[in-house]
């Protein structure tokens, strides 16, 4: 009876011991396995979703100890969510970010400086200017994933139909205005100039170069303020464009793209990705695209200089992350791996890689197109840094509300400029 009772007890002990050993092994294996949380909008958008998911799968295959948990957040929501998560102590490890939002996040003190991760050879391979504007207090707080500056796209067919020389895009604001008038007269159904006049921080980023070419700089170092002759000249020009039907106020930059694909926009102030969007929409071949579209730098205004903005995406690492080396390996992979550059950066994002050489001669040759060439030679040299930060976010509402008043209302320009000035951060 006693021996019979002891046997099950021994079996139970053996089972518990085996379970404990298995649990320890599993625990050890789980400890070795790293999970990185990657907040991004690439996986939230139809055009980029498959390519980014493939990039993640490939990274996981080449790094068996790292699992990437992709968190899809829309472009317009990601900054809010990241700020709230950073302040509540629950940020992801890596995130995709862009424009003013990058510097806003840096101001929360939640970002890991990347200087110690970027070695000399990688730094030497980064395009000139790609790192500019990404340092706060002398520390690199984001790594450039891609470059996507804005240029003045021109539709050669529309220009020709208006009696303009399609190979001579305007080089000054006066020439541009004259071309827009000619286009409006010959083709009333065409929007002569596509320019974002919504009220959001990106719209200020997009309009900033136009203000600059009039000599206006509402905030930042060396600011002219909003109640200045330069700002009034810019607002007056915008009002003239709107009143004469030379622009279509209230549209987002993205809302001009499908119209451009239908040859309904003559000049479009847009980023390098426009080519991909147009070809994706109308299935135009690359040769036909180059015959129809060209891109050049912004026409020069009274200030005498052309300007552009860098609308590329960056990758950031949060200081609170527990696996910083793994996070950096993932960031480096996304920004420099030839397959990711081919499939994602060039393929679906239609943007320029942030590195000079991808390490793949065939891929580097793909970058040799008339559009990429024009961006490299004419547009990128005109990129100007913008005074990003909390003040820029505050100013964006005030300035863009003023721009909207100028292009849609009758309030005197002097009053609008004074009103913007009153609302600007001191």
């Amino acid at each position, binding site marked *: 009876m006693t021996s019979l009772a002891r046997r099950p007890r021994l079996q139970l002990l053996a089972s518990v011991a085996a379970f404990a050993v298995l649990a320890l092994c599993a625990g050890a294996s789980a400890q070795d396995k790293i999970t990185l949380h990657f907040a991004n909008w690439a996986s939230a958008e139809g055009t980029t979703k498959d390519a980014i998911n493939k990039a993640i799968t490939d990274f996981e295959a080449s790094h068996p100890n790292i699992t990437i948990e992709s968190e899809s957040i829309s472009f317009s929501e990601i900054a809010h969510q990241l700020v709230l998560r950073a302040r509540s102590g629950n940020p992801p490890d890596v995130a995709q970010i862009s424009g003013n939002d990058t510097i806003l996040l840096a101001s*929360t003190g939640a970002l890991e400086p990347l200087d110690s991760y970027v070695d000399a050879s990688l730094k030497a391979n980064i395009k000139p200017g790609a790192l500019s504007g990404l340092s706060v207090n002398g520390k690199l707080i984001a790594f450039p994933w891609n470059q996507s500056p804005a240029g003045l796209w021109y539709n050669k067919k529309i220009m020709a139909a208006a009696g303009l020389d399609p190979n001579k895009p305007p080089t000054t604001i006066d020439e541009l205005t004259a071309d827009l008038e000619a286009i409006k007269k010959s083709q009333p159904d065409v929007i002569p100039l596509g320019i974002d006049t919504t*009220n959001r*921080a990106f719209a200020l980023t997009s309009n900033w170069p136009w203000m600059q070419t009039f000599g206006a700089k509402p905030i930042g170092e060396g600011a002219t303020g909003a109640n200045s002759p330069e700002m009034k000249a810019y607002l007056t020009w915008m009002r003239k464009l709107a009143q004469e039907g030379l622009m279509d106020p209230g549209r987002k930059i993205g809302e001009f793209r499908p119209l451009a694909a239908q040859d309904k926009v003559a000049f479009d102030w847009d980023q390098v990705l426009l080519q991909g969007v147009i070809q994706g929409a109308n299935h135009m071949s690359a040769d036909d695209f180059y015959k129809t579209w060209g891109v050049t730098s912004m026409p020069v205004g009274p200030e005498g200089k052309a300007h552009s903005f860098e609308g590329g995406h960056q990758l950031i690492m949060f200081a609170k992350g527990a696996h910083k080396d793994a996070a950096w390996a993932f960031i480096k992979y996304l920004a420099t791996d030839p397959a990711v550059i081919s499939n994602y950066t060039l393929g679906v994002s239609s943007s320029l890689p942030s590195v000079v050489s991808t390490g793949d001669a065939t891929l580097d040759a793909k970058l040799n197109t008339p559009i990429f060439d024009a961006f490299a030679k004419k547009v990128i040299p005109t990129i100007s840094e913008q005074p990003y930060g909390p003040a820029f976010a505050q100013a964006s*509402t005030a300035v863009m509300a003023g721009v*909207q008043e100028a292009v*849609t*209302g009758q309030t005197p320009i002097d009053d609008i400029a004074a009103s913007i000035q009153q609302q600007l951060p001191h």
Partner: protein
Amino acid sequence: MVAANATTITATARRNVERYPLLDWMVTPTLVVLALVVGYPIVYTLVLSVQDYNLLNVTPATFVGAQNYRNLVLDPIFWVSLENTAIYTFGSVIVSALLGLILALLTENLTSGPSRFARTLLLMPWAVPFVVVAFLFRYMYLQNGGIINAILLATGILHAPVPWLNSAALAMPAVSVANIWAMTPFFFLLLSAALTAIPNEVIEAARIDRARGWSMIVFIKLPFLAAALLISSLLMVISNFNDFAKIWAMTQGGPGYSTSTLVVYVYRLAFEQYNFGYASAIGVVWLLLLLCFALAYLRALRIR
């Protein structure tokens, strides 16, 4: 007999409550949940409203007393937003209530099959999600390619497309029209139900007294509809005061500040500038205004 039993049971239950006052403690879990879900955010908003608290500042929030409220008084955008909120809310509610009333009266006697289908169709806009309504109208209002301009141009009513949402003067009426379209069925539904509740004896007595058409509506039906009209209007005032989706999706408060309401302004302050202290101060004022409407609503319910 059943009614008599029910009365007896209710009376017994009431007596039980009186006999066991400890049963009052049974509501404690509900009060705790309410205190957490409703009370905590309100108290925290009050606390934030007297602080200089910006999420982008690494430095901790500091107590600033009534400074945020002083800023609010001097802030022209706050007053513009408050004025827009009043115009949008009361304009939409008054017009929707009138339209709902007219439709309810016009369709009162439609009881056949096809007529019932028509009444159902009239209710359809209420079933459309507000964000869908906003995008629907946004695309209809487009200056280039919008169906409204296309029809007006094709029929010769207009000679040039109108920038409905991109004109500082037209944007608020245009947004209000979308809101009225979505809200009218609510009034139509409630007032139709109230119309059917008018006792037949009253209608027949009025007919005997030769009340017809206009006099029947003004002197007989409207007094019966007054309660439903008041309560539904107050509900809609509270609902429209908080309406964010339609305005944000159609104009984002623009052009300029021409359609910026309090809720849009608070959103911009809190989630674009991360200025939670000042946004909370506006939230407190907004809450007080809504409390006034809520009290009026409760009072109306009690009177009726």
